[in-house]
């Protein structure tokens, strides 16, 4: 969807067109659903968060200022709603973590139960992934989620956050280093990598 098409649909939806809004939902549902799913780890929670996100957007359509793309706004709503849900879930675990500046931060993360369908080991790893990311300080977490969970390009991230692409690159490199530090605390990520040599590297779309 081109930015112009998006703008046209948002305006039509704000004027009462249900089919215009339906087109916006169809266009963005995969993005919204998957950020919710990767943050919460639970398909039912992801569905709830996604529906909540779209309905919240619908109720607030008239206050959308077109300063960024509509999809970026939806993404932000979904991200925040997912984080809110994580904080609310029972069985929360309190942790103290040190960030890059050596400051101690108190973090509360959800203690999510593994699903019975998936193998225990794989589910444990995925849980560790979610936990590690949740433990990052907010500015680093946000950019890691956009890049590594949602596969957003540097230019999309720059656009969504209102910063330069160069800034995105340096922020990501710092965030990755910080995440690697956290990951090293988990046994599951300390296993030697199967590929010792670097080749081209992992390609992002």
């Amino acid at each position, binding site marked *: 969807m081109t930015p112009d098409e998006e703008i046209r649909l948002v305006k*039509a939806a704000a*004027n*009462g*067109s*249900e*089919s*215009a*809004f*339906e087109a916006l*939902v*169809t266009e963005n*549902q*995969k993005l*919204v*659903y*998957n950020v919710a*799913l*990767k943050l919460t780890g639970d*398909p039912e929670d992801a*569905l709830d968060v*996604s*529906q909540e996100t*779209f*309905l919240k957007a*619908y109720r607030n359509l008239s206050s959308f200022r077109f300063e960024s793309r509509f999809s970026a706004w939806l993404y932000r709503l979904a991200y925040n709603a997912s984080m809110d849900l994580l904080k609310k879930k029972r069985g929360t675990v309190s942790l103290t973590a040190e960030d890059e500046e050596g400051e101690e931060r108190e973090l509360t993360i959800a203690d999510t139960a593994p699903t019975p369908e998936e193998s225990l080991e*794989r589910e444990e*790893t*995925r849980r*560790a*992934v979610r936990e*590690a990311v949740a433990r990052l300080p907010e500015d680093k977490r946000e950019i890691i989620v956009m890049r*590594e*969970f949602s*596969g957003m390009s540097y230019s999309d991230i720059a656009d969504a956050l209102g910063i330069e692409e160069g800034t995105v*690159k*340096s922020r*990501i*490199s*710092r965030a*990755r*280093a910080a*995440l*690697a530090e956290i*990951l*090293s605390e988990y046994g*599951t*990520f*300390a*296993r*030697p*990598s199967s*590929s010792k*040599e*670097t*080749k*081209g*590297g*992992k*390609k*992002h779309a």
Partner: protein
Amino acid sequence: MPNCEDFRELISKYFDGELSADETAELNEHIAGCEDCSRFMSAYSLFLDSVPEDAEPPAELLSGVMSGVRAINAKKKKRRRALIIRWTAAAASFALVIFAGLSLFRGGYKSADTKSAEAESATSSNHYLAPTAPDDYGADFSDADLAEAPMDMAPVPEPEPAFPADSFDGAIDDTYKNETMGADPGEAYEPEAEPVTEGETVGGLHVTYVDGMCAEATELFADREWEIEPSGDEANEFWVLFHYLIDWEKALAICEELEESPAIESAEPMIAEY
């Protein structure tokens, strides 16, 4: 002396798949001898491999959202909204053949008799509007209906069933030109339980339909030739108002139909609330 901080950028580039051949060699050389960076890279690789693939959202997502949307709309208080179609004519000709499903009325002028009436009424002006169609309006559409004015308004003069061009004195009331569409949703107008009747001015728009009869009116006036007077800001701009038609999709469809006519340059729907 190489510092691992320096390699942080390179490592990040690796994970973006953007290392050049030279940089790849440089990085390989470094991690062969650096535990920390080696651990960084293997942990991060495992992390990336563990991020699940994108899943398809379930069908309930869309259906759930759309039922929610309909529920929100149903709850909204019934606000009076008028949907106007504004179009620009390609030629100076005012004669227009109407497509089926469209109701068009003359608008934007004031007959000589109502000017005195306006002097009395501080709040709104009365415009008598009538189609130029031949005598037969059909049984449901008597002259008396057209002449009916609401209680608070100054009286409307005796209507004429036909309105041939030569009886028109040529004076077009252009006070509406000073009002912007929709910006002032008729503060002179007080919403009442009864729909507005023809002849009222609402927020600068000349009411050009007959209330409650929109559906019937469209059938009555379709496929006839109409003489249309300009009612917008430009000489070739015309407005048609559909009361109660708050269906945006329908308005868009009508605009598309209008635009297919060679007589019409562009057609655009707008909404005014009152």
